[in-house]
C-alpha cells in the first residue's frame, strides 16, 4: 500500500529536479556570499578562519531562507493543498513531509557547498565535522521555520515571510556559530548540538502543528 505521504515525497522531488533552479539558486547564492568575504577583507588566513564559522552560518541561513518561502504557494494555487486536508493522513505529517523534501532539495546541497566554503575560508580541518553536524540540524530547523512563515503569508509577498522567520532564526545562528567556534578551539561542543537537537525535537511537532493552523487560515 502506497501512502499519500510517499507519493507526495516522490512527486515533489520529481518536480524539483525538473526545475533545477530550485536547488541551484541557493547553492550559488551560498557560494557568492562566501566568496565575498575574502574579497572584502583581504586574504589574511588568520582573520578569515576566525570569522569562518559566522560567515558560513550566515550564508547558510540566508540561502535556505531564499528557497523556502514559496514552499506552499503552488500547491495552494492549483488545489493540491485541498487534498492535504481531505486525506486520511493527519495534515501535520504531510506538512512535515513537505518540509523534509524541501530540506533534501535545498539544505543537503548546502552541506556539500559548506565543505568548499570551509576550504576557501581556511576553516581548521578538525572542525569540519562539527560544522556539518550543526548545519544539518540548523538548516532543517530553518526549513521548518520557513514553512511556518510561508504558511502564514500564503499568497502574499515572499519577503514578508522572510521577515516573520528571520528573528526566530537568530538562536540557530548563535548556536551554530558557537558549535564551530568551539570545535576550532578544541572545546566541548556537544552541549550546543544538544540544544539545537532539543530545539528541533520541540520544533518539529510544534511548528508542524502551527503550520497546519496557519494553512487552515486560508480556508475560511
Amino acid at each position, binding site marked *: 500500500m502506497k501512502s499519500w505521504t510517499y507519493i507526495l515525497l516522490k512527486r515533489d522531488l520529481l518536480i524539483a529536479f525538473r526545475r533545477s533552479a530550485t536547488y541551484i539558486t541557493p547553492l550559488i547564492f551560498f557560494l557568492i556570499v562566501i566568496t565575498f568575504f575574502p574579497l572584502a577583507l583581504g586574504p589574511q588566513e588568520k582573520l578569515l578562519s576566525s570569522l569562518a564559522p559566522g560567515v558560513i552560518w550566515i550564508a547558510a541561513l540566508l540561502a535556505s531562507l531564499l528557497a523556502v518561502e514559496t514552499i506552499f504557494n503552488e500547491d495552494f494555487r492549483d488545489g493540491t493543498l485541498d487534498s492535504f486536508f481531505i486525506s486520511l493522513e493527519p495534515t501535520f505529517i504531510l506538512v512535515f513531509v513537505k518540509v523534509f523534501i524541501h530540506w533534501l532539495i535545498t539544505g543537503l546541497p548546502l552541506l556539500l557547498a559548506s565543505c568548499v566554503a570551509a576550504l576557501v575560508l581556511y576553516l581548521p580541518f578538525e572542525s569540519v565535522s562539527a560544522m556539518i553536524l550543526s548545519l544539518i540540524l540548523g538548516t532543517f530547523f530553518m526549513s521548518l521555520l520557513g514553512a*511556518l512563515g510561508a504558511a*502564514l*503569508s500564503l499568497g*502574499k*509577498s515572499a519577503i*514578508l515571510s522572510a*521577515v*516573520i522567520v*528571520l*528573528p*526566530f532564526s*537568530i*538562536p540557530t545562528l548563535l548556536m551554530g556559530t558557537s558549535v564551530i567556534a568551539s570545535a576550532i578551539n578544541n572545546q566541548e561542543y556537544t552541549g550546543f548540538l544538544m540544544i539545537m537537537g532539543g530545539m528541533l525535537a520541540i520544533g518539529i511537532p510544534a*511548528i508542524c502543528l*502551527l503550520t497546519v*493552523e*496557519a494553512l487552515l*487560515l*486560508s480556508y*475560511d
Partner: protein
Amino acid sequence: MGSPPLFYRWSSKALVWLGVSSIITLSLGLFMGIGLSPADYKQGDVYRIIYIHVPSAIMGESIFIFMALCGFINIIWRAKISGMLLKAAAPIGMSFVLLVLTTGSIWGKPTWGTWWVWDARLTSTLILFFIYAALIGLHSTIEDKIKADRAVSILAIVGVAIIPVIKKSVDWWQTLHQPSTFKLTSAPSMSPEMYQPLLICVIGFYLVFAFILTLNLRNEILERESSKKWVKEVIGNQS
C-alpha cells in the same frame, strides 16, 4: 462584556477613570523621580532617563506576554475579543520598545560613549522590535480581520520565547548593560529614593497602556462592526 455594544458603553466610563488615574500616577512618579530623588553619584542627572527607560522596557515585554496569552486564547477558544485585544495591543507594545531603544541610545552616548553596542540585551530588545514589526506587518496583509487575528496569534505564541531571552540576557552573557536589580525574589539593590518613584512610574505606564488599549479596542470594534446598526447610532450621536 460579551457583546460589543455593551462593552462599548461600559468602556466609555472605564476610559475616564483610566485616563485620570494614569495621568495622576505617571506625573507623581515622574515628579518624584526627576524632581525629588537625588542625582546618581557616578552618572549625575543623566541617569534620570531611567524613569522612562525601565518602565517602557517592562511594558514592551509584558505587552508581548499579554499578546501571547490573547493569542493562545484566540487559537484554542476562538474568542473574537482576544483577537481584537491582540491587534489593539501590538502597536502600543511596539511604541514602547521603540522608546526603550531610543532612550537607551540616548543614555548610552554619555555613559558608554556610543549610540549602540552589540550586546546581548540590546540585541535581544532589537529582535523584539523586529518581531513586533513582523506581527503588525502580517496583520496588515490579511484583509479578513478574523483570519489576520489568528495568523498573528500563532506568531505571538511562537514569539514569546524571546522574552525570557531578554530577561536573562544580562545573566547569561557578560554584557555592558546593567544587570537586573528588579527581582521578585530579593530586595532591590537600589536606594529607596530611586526605587520608589520607579515603581510608581511602572504602575503609571501600566495604566497608560490600559487606557490606550481600551481606546484602540473601541476603534477596532467600531471598524469591524461598522455595518451594524448600533455602530451607526453611536457615530450618529457623536456627530
